[in-house]
């Protein structure tokens, strides 16, 4: 019997019966229903201690008393005032919303749940109502009539529930006529909750790990060596190639970093193996780092300060190791941080050089200040220059679609590079419907620290729009694989696809590149990086051998 933290607990036919009519009670008078499967467990005090965060305490979401610290209302109001004076986005977005509702059915959580407080506009009103009451003239005088409400413990509970039901995917901000970005609102809401010691453990434990050990999973240096060695073993089994394992290597040309999820979780590990293979093939002088062993940054889901604290290690390690520039792997939120925050937070990286591809000589001018290049930009350039011998037929059993990850799409705009790479390594590539890709892409439902099993109902609901689009291409084109350049996608979309579009596997793009690459010195490639037999390959080779044998040319193809 499945429990609430397993997909099998939920009947898909029931889950799609979505009540889109708002409740009879006005939203300010509708309390939160904390039902299992829709909220995340509290952050454990030990993790707050590691980070030196205020008010660590034991509490439970379903408790009536959340044991808020003395004077908590003042803490929140002071925190709001501080943030209103520091972030123009926050101040402006509190003031200018007209409640037109254009954002409402753009949110995957609203589409999947029908809960009006999951409309981006209402999610922001949860904060805006307090702002009006305590920071605006009309609100101070007219109170509720002007859309204000008093700050009570129930408001805090509501914030906790709904700011951890937003994946900061920014889809709503694409459609908002003023560009109001719910990610900014949610980030502020979570920062304010943090002032009271309220976090979710799924975020704050990885943050504590990352702070201490350099990666969210808490993998220690010797563990990382073991992990990469293990992968090297699998690489050898699949391809016959022995790859180098440069770790903490001083004087390497490039520091490579990627989300740590890809060190341990299937299918991310195959993408990680692909990096090692491709760097080996291209002869790149690079290094991994155990200290900067995670590009992912759950600080983004905690507070701006925490984001900066975790991100600092990237440039610091690049400096210590004396590399020339930095290359980043496939990850979603990591690239939001790297692209839009890192240079501001922890730059200038003037000790590095403008990134130049050692393979093609291309100067990456668009990264000339941050000195950090995306693996897809790098590989697209390599493939464009014909520097990677490719045989896309090796992926012919795969009919692939591409899921644009939220942050690279809407916080960066890397749309064509991955598609160019995919088209060059797969003969069967099919796009999902246009309103579900590129800048209009739908979240996996588990980003921004929501991808934990106790949140299963919301993950499945939030994953509905994406899952539905996947099923569409599955039924129409026979798509059997979904490529995504994000480690969270590679973790959460497996569940979403199994549930909403069973039969579609999830993969990283680099994995497909490595499977299509004809490596120097490779053995007969009968198995892919997953060590699954490649349909046709074994037979074809046998056939080819038979032909060659009759002509007396055995081995000539090797």
């Amino acid at each position, binding site marked *: 019997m499945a429990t609430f933290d397993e997909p099998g607990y939920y009947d898909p036919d029931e889950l799609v019966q979505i009540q889109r009519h*708002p409740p009879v009670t006005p*939203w300010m008078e509708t309390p939160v229903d904390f039902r299992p499967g829709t909220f995340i467990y509290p952050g454990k005090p030990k993790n707050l201690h590691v980070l030196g965060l205020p008010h660590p305490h034991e509490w439970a979401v379903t408790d009536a008393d959340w044991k808020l610290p003395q004077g908590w209302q003042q803490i929140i109001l002071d925190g709001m005032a501080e943030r209103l004076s*520091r*972030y*123009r*986005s926050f101040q*402006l977005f509190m*003031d*200018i919303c007209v*409640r*037109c509702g*254009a954002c409402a059915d753009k949110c995957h959580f609203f*589409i999947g749940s029908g809960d*009006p407080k999951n409309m981006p506009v209402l999610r922001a*009103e949860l904060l805006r109502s307090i702002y009006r009451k305590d920071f*605006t003239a009309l609100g101070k005088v007219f109170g509720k*009539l*002007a*859309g204000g409400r008093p700050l009570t413990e129930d408001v805090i509970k509501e914030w906790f529930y709904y700011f951890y039901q937003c994946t900061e995917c*920014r889809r709503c901000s*694409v*459609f908002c*006529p*003023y*560009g*109001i970005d719910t990610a900014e609102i949610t980030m502020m809401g979570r920062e304010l909750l943090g002032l009271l010691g309220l976090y979710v453990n799924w975020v704050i434990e990885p943050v504590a790990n990352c702070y201490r050990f350099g990666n969210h999973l808490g993998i220690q240096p*010797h563990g990382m*060596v*073991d992990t990469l060695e293990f992968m090297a073993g699998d690489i050898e089994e699949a391809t016959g190639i022995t790859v180098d394992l440069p*770790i903490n290597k001083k004087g390497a040309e490039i520091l490579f970093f990627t989300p740590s999820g890809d060190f341990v979780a299937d299918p991310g590990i195959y993408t990680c193996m692909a990096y090692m293979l491709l760097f080996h093939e291209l002869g790149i002088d690079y290094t991994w780092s155990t*200290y900067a062993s995670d590009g992912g940054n759950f600080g983004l889901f905690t507070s*701006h300060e925490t984001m900066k*604290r975790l991100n600092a*290690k990237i440039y*610091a390690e690049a400096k*210590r190791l004396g590399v020339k520039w930095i290359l980043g792997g496939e990850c979603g939120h990591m690239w939001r941080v790297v692209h*839009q925050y890192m*240079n*501001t*937070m922890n730059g*200038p990286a003037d000790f590095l050089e403008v990134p130049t591809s050692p393979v093609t000589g291309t100067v*990456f*001018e*668009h990264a000339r*200040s*941050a000195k*950090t290049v995306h693996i897809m930009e790098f590989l*697209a*350039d390599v493939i464009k220059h014909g520097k990677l011998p490719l045989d896309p037929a090796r992926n012919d059993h795969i009919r692939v679609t591409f899921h644009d990850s939220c942050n690279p*799409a*809407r*916080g960066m*705009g890397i*749309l064509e*590079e991955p598609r160019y790479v995919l088209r060059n390594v797969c003969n069967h590539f099919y796009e999902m*419907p246009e309103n*579900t890709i590129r800048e*209009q892409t739908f979240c996996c439902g588990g980003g921004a620290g929501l991808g934990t099993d106790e949140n299963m109902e919301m993950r499945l609901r939030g994953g509905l*729009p994406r899952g539905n*689009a996947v099923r569409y291409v599955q039924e129409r084109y026979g798509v059997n694989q979904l490529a995504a350049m994000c480690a969270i996608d590679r973790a959460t979309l497996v569940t979403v696809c199994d549930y909403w579009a069973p039969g579609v596997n999830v993969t990283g793009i680099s994995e497909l590149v490595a499977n299509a690459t004809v490596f120097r010195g490779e053995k007969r490639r009968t198995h892919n990086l997953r060590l699954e037999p490649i349909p046709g390959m074994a037979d074809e080779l046998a056939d080819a051998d038979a032909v060659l044998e009759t002509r007396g040319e055995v081995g000539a193809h090797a």
Partner: protein
Amino acid sequence: MTMLIAVGLVTALFLVGMLGAAAGLQWVFGVALPYLAVGMFVIGLAARVLRWANVPVPFRIPTTCGQQRSLAWIRPQRLENPPDTPSVIGRMALEILGFRSLLRNTKTVMIDGRRLTYATDLALWAGAIVMHWAMLIALIRHLRLMTNPVPGFVTLVERFDGFFEVGMPVIYLTSVAFLGALAYLLYRRLAIPEVRYISLVGDYFPLFLLLAIGGSGFWLRHVTTTDIASVKALVLGLTHFAPTVPASISPLFFGHLFLVSVLLAYFPFSKLLHMPGVFLSPTRNLANTTRISRHVNPWDYPVKVHTYAEYEDELRDKMIGAGLPVEKD
């Protein structure tokens, strides 16, 4: 309920203006309050915009809605993902003049209980853009009352606006469009359950205020014609700081003028601030150049980090055991 409060407020305000003037308070409603309202509008708006402008933009966070500029052979979508300032100006122009983001609007519908579809839905865009442009043109037409001689472009706008030459005096296209668009915006606010659910008094009030201003203006021009020469004398007096109140102006006009005064005074304290606000929105008005040039956070402060030295101190034995190089033996 919230809607009724707004209706009641606007009706009461209109009656106050009309009856007040009829009771002999023309100087109050024709001169004092309009000046006060313009003062509140200008000072209130300036204060709000300055307040926004004084809040820093610590991070460069444009919402990118198209391909970035990266490799030379990949064509960037400059107006959706601006790589430089001219592109930002283009993006903002599209947003402000054409309501670009609303133009993307889709309606999500589940078909047969199994397939989600996202059909283009331009009703909101159409209602909004017609309302705003019609209002702008109506404002330009009103310059006739504030200027002497009337500038050529005002007459030109009037000529185009009255192109169909229906009615006497000619009914302007924008008068009808303005009222029609407002009525639609009100309709959708009531008819779409989600939108009605989130609507505040502050959402209905400006709608009814504008409807009443447009409606009374239409009435003044086409139903009970007022002494236009006297109205112009009053408005010219106001704009030239030599106020005068001619006797022959109907109370209806003072109702109209008072609602305009209320609108101006209310503007800086309301959601109508979206007008100046859209210019300052950090997700729209910034170039996507964070990796090209460093954006500086003016309030940046040092944070506590876990340094490599601390990391190695804790894990040195394990690193040595795993054959990893260390800084200190």
